[in-house]
């Protein structure tokens, strides 16, 4: 299983979880601490196998819950260790308290979230409801759409999180089952190449028993405000930093994903589709089909969801006459999807006022089909002509 890690660049057939585990191993973490939860379990299984084989020389800490896992990583990261954890849904909800703590103490923890529906109903299936809850945790969010992108995003995530100007935890997200259990060819680079891209982690100020430090103490309101302000600046800076890091990555590994957003056939598109995660692959097929029918449609896949790539999205949509937003989640209280809400916020002040249509589908593990996306494109095209339209459509029900 580990031969791919020792030899030079090699293509292996891996599912999303194993791709993530391979990438983590190549990043040489010091501490791995996670609690198993479907559909993330294979990551741990693979990492423990690597550890048993001696390929992964990390400290593997077994804990009783996700909440403790994130707590263990706080200590490990403060001591200057490179850390990893993985979870989803109910586990992420339990972990939330420590996640916000680690973000505000500015620790470069890297986590994988295998997006799963939140209960109830108790759905052990795909859905982005868990990661949408995580929007306000102060973490950087990167969404992948293929197993190769999962692999590459984990390596990029460490580089981004550990950047001295950023130092904010990063979560790499991908759809449960649709990617976590989907087997695809994944190119695995050599250890030397990854080492070249990702040098050992440096924490400053360093923590040791001689110089006692305290983290997150009570502070007067003015200092508290200052730290919030600094975190907002760093989070904003992460947008351009990702693009820079990805450029370096592309030079070294020959692969890139467009930075904050991935654009597909948008250069002359009137109709723009927006999506997150694995369904963007399906949407590309639908876009190609509709292009053959003469509809000028393009796709914008939001790769970095937090911080939201406002400038890039506005630029990508500047020629669009209508936008169709596909959401695998709901935004309670607004009666639509979360990506639509983000897009609305991004477009305000840009002078762009075009029909925005929201398509909610793929909830609780249901498939997002090519036919559904074609229907979404047709409805968006009709709205672009000035016909009255319905803002939110639940494609599986209506």
């Amino acid at each position, binding site marked *: 299983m580990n031969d791919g890690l020792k030899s030079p660049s090699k293509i292996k057939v891996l599912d999303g979880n194993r791709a993530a585990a391979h990438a983590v191993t190549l990043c040489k973490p010091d501490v791995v601490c996670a609690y198993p939860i479907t559909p993330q379990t294979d990551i741990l299984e693979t990492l423990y196998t690597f550890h048993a084989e001696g390929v992964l020389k990390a400290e593997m800490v077994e804990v009783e819950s996700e909440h403790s896992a994130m707590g263990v990583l706080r200590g490990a990261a403060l001591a200057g260790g490179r850390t990893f954890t993985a979870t989803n849904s109910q586990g992420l909800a339990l972990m939330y308290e420590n996640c916000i703590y680690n973000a505000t103490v500015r620790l470069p923890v890297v986590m994988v979230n295998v997006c799963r529906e939140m209960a109830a109903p108790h759905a052990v299936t795909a859905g982005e409801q868990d990661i949408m809850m995580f929007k306000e945790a102060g973490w950087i969010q990167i969404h992948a759409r293929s197993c190769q992108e999962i692999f590459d995003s984990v390596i990029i995530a460490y580089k981004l999180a550990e950047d001295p100007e950023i130092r904010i935890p990063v979560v790499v997200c991908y759809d449960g089952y649709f990617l976590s259990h989907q087997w695809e060819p994944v190119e695995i680079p050599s250890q030397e190449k990854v080492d070249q891209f990702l040098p050992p982690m440096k924490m400053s100020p360093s923590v040791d028993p001689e110089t006692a430090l305290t983290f997150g103490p009570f*502070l007067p309101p*003015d200092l*508290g405000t200052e730290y919030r302000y*600094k975190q907002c600046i760093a989070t904003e800076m992460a947008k351009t930093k990702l693009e820079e890091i990805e450029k370096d990555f592309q030079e070294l590994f020959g692969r890139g994903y467009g930075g904050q957003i991935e654009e597909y056939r948008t250069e002359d598109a009137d109709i723009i589709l927006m999506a997150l995660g694995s369904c963007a692959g399906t949407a590309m097929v639908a876009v190609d089909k509709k292009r053959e029918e003469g509809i000028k449609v393009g796709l914008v896949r939001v790769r970095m969801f937090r911080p939201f790539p406002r400038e890039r999205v506005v630029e990508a949509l500047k020629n669009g006459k209508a936008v169709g937003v596909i959401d695998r989640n709901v935004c309670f209280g607004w009666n639509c999807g979360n990506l639509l809400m983000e897009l609305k916020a991004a477009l305000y002040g840009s002078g762009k006022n075009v029909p925005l249509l929201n398509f909610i589908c793929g909830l609780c593990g249901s498939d997002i089909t090519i036919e559904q996306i074609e229907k979404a494109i047709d409805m968006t095209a009709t709205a672009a002509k000035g016909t009255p339209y319905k803002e939110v459509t639940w494609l599986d029900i209506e």
Partner: protein
Amino acid sequence: MQFKTKLDAAWAYPTKLFVVNVSEWRYMKPVVKRAKCCHCEICSLYCPTGCIEDMGNYFGVDLDHCKGCGLCAKTCPVHAIKMVMEV
């Protein structure tokens, strides 16, 4: 932008930590009768904030950190500590 600290996040060295005056909310303060103090250290063991200081032949109180809970006065076996109203 003028920042008050060079740190990115709420990290602090304990010696420079006490930027909040935690004694502000105290309404009673302990007063030690030096002559009565038997230097047994019991008050120091019980003090939740660790603000009792060994002054050589008696124990004193660091009033910058004392919150006035009164445990020292309650536990003193020779009644050398008395809680008095802050003015």
